[in-house]
């Protein structure tokens, strides 16, 4: 099988992509309205939603960037994994019940819809939609680029194909993604997430065992090698240091409750009570998938330090290099499919909430009503957003994509945690406080990134700008709400907030 490694990997990836197209076609028959397209008719079961929640959270970053960060910085990035037990708990406590109740009461089909119901403010709803759209474009561009790079590396070893142009690779991966998102909307998205989630868990479990045997002495052997080289790398803080690491912990713990592509799924469940079972299932799925992140990163750092493997050209090559040199071809195939799965499961959710912002939330906030034939426009918007993001990914240069990427997790966290996660649980929160929190989030995340790009400015101890933005936006949100007079909330919303 070893001599046919490239073909085995390509077959696994092709089977996975065909499966995505099949799910798209199946979901098309179940998508009859914009409510189905954006909210899956609120008929999702416990397992489907739990897997969709964790697989959307993991994203391609967890399978490529995560091992790369462990390779480069030791234990520092593990705080993004360690935070998930408390992070998902916060998300479910704050939003598991509340969001689902708002969605049913007001028939909301998007997060800004629920924001409109809570604050009764078109401005707050519109600002939420704009923050989502900005974040989506940046994140999606990064995901599309990652998807294309993975496909390129799968195809490059195939005889007769060789290295293909990145544009061609973007076109193929986007076509599959857009096909199932356009035909089946969120239904296709969550059911592909289900397959993607299981592929990720199986891949991660197998890789963990492979990594353990790739280094003499297993994890203890890795630890001893890392300690001998630099004990700080294997200390709890890794090479980044305590303050930088704890800023990540803050951002990824509380910020999880502000990721629209994740929390929107809490609005889609069949029953309010489903949240009770979803919380442990989500944590279990994420933890198993994260084994890949930890094991590959530690194994590759150790192997390079022991001179058993040549130094990597860049840290992000840790996962592909490990799979290429240490994994069985079938396992490598499954993991490459898992890698695409991780990227696509996040990208499809972004496409869906981006389309909702364009055709539903912004028109409703500005004109007071949705578009006529919303389903048609939702499908059209999905194609346009994917094309724009692909254009950004290909032609705007790495710096601009990185800048847009700054609008990702940090912006969502600082804009949406106060407005939604806190505001939906606290009657005194005002629309003005929410607006200021969203604007401060955009301003701080974008401003600091610009400063870092074009000047010598850096935040001390490499504290993450997203953590600062989240802290400031939350402080402003509480401060302004506490100092203002309580605003009138619609009677039905107020009654639901008392439950």
């Amino acid at each position, binding site marked *: 099988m070893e001599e046919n490694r490239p073909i085995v990997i390509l077959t696994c990836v092709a089977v996975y992509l065909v499966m995505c197209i099949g799910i798209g076609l199946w979901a098309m028959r179940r998508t009859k309205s914009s409510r189905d397209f954006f909210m899956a008719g609120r008929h999702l079961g416990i397992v489907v939603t739990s897997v969709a929640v964790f697989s959307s959270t993991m994203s391609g970053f967890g399978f490529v960037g995560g091992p790369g960060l462990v390779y480069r910085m030791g234990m520092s990035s593990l705080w993004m994994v*360690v935070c998930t037990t408390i992070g998902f708990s916060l998300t479910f406590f704050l939003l598991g019940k509340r969001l689902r109740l708002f969605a049913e009461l007001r028939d909301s089909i998007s997060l800004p819809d629920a924001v409109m119901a809570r604050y009764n403010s078109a401005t707050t709803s519109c600002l939420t939609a704009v923050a989502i759209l900005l974040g989506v474009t940046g994140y999606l561009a990064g995901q599309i680029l990652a998807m294309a790079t993975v496909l390129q590396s799968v195809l490059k070893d195939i005889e007769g194909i060789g290295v293909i142009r990145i544009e061609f690779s973007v076109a193929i991966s986007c076509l599959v993604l857009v096909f199932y998102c356009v035909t089946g909307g969120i239904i296709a998205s969550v059911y592909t997430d289900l397959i993607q989630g299981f592929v990720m868990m199986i891949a991660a479990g197998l890789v963990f065992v492979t990594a353990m045997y790739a280094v003499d002495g297993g994890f203890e052997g890795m630890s001893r090698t890392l300690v001998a080289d630099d004990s700080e*790398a294997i200390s709890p803080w890794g090479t980044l240091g*305590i303050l930088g690491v704890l800023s990540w912990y803050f951002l990824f713990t509380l910020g999880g409750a502000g990721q629209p592509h994740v929390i929107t799924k809490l609005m889609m469940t069949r029953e309010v009570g489903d949240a009770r079972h979803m919380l442990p299932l989500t*944590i279990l799925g994420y933890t198993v998938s994260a084994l890949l992140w930890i094991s590959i990163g530690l194994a590759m750092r150790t192997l390079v330090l022991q001179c058993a493997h040549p130094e990597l050209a860049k*840290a992000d090559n840790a996962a592909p290099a490990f799979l290429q040199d240490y994994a069985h071809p079938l396992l490598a195939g499954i993991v490459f499919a898992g890698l695409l799965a991780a990227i696509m499961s996040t990208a499809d959710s972004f496409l869906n909430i981006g389309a909702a912002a364009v055709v539903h939330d912004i028109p409703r906030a500005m004109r007071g009503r949705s578009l006529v034939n919303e389903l048609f426009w939702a499908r059209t918007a999905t194609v346009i957003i994917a094309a724009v993001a692909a254009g950004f990914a290909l032609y705007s240069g790495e710096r601009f994509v990185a800048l847009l990427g700054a609008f990702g997790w940090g912006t969502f966290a600082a804009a949406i945690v106060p407005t939604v996660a806190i505001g939906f649980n606290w009657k*005194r929160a005002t629309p003005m406080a929410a607006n200021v929190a969203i604007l401060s989030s955009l301003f701080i995340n974008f401003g600091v990134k610009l400063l870092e790009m074009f000047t010598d400015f850096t935040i001390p101890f490499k504290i993450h700008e997203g953590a600062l933005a989240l802290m400031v936006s939350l402080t402003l949100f509480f401060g302004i709400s506490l100092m203002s007079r309580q605003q009138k909330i619609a009677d039905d919303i107020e009654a639901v907030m008392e*439950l």
Partner: protein
Amino acid sequence: MRTPLVLFCLLVAMCGVMAACFVTEEAPTSRGVEHSDFETMHQGGPDARHSRRVLMLGWGFGMLQIALYVGCLILAVGGDAKTRGFVTMLILCGFAYVGVFTAMVTVYAQTVGTAEPKFLGSFPAATTWMLFVLWPVPLLFVVCYVVGFKRWVWTPSDRERFEQILAAREIEQEVSD
């Protein structure tokens, strides 16, 4: 009213810790430096970069974070008489969380300046605390959520009340149509 005020105070204190970071002198390796032999890797360098002041700031930042998380959980369940038992459980879990975090920082602080960290299992002791105790300790909150869900989070009377609210809303909409 009390919980949001406490959360606001915790956030102000966190901003204070951040401000202190801006006026604290950084060691040259405080955020890691390029590895001496492999340019794609970083090294932390001597652990003395974590001076007493930096460790105290880190510990304070972590403690405030945990208090904020527990406060947010309490905000979510509502701090009225009906949920007092649940809130007490969350606070107790919060103490366990704070204790584990403090233990991890203490174990690490004890190794600063020593030649080689002591191992506990397959990893240095402080790392073992992080991976095998700090990571799972918030599962206590998950247990509280699962066990207390029907009694405190979504009770049969909540369900009944929600159905009434839904029905009232439908009637209101029919009238306005």
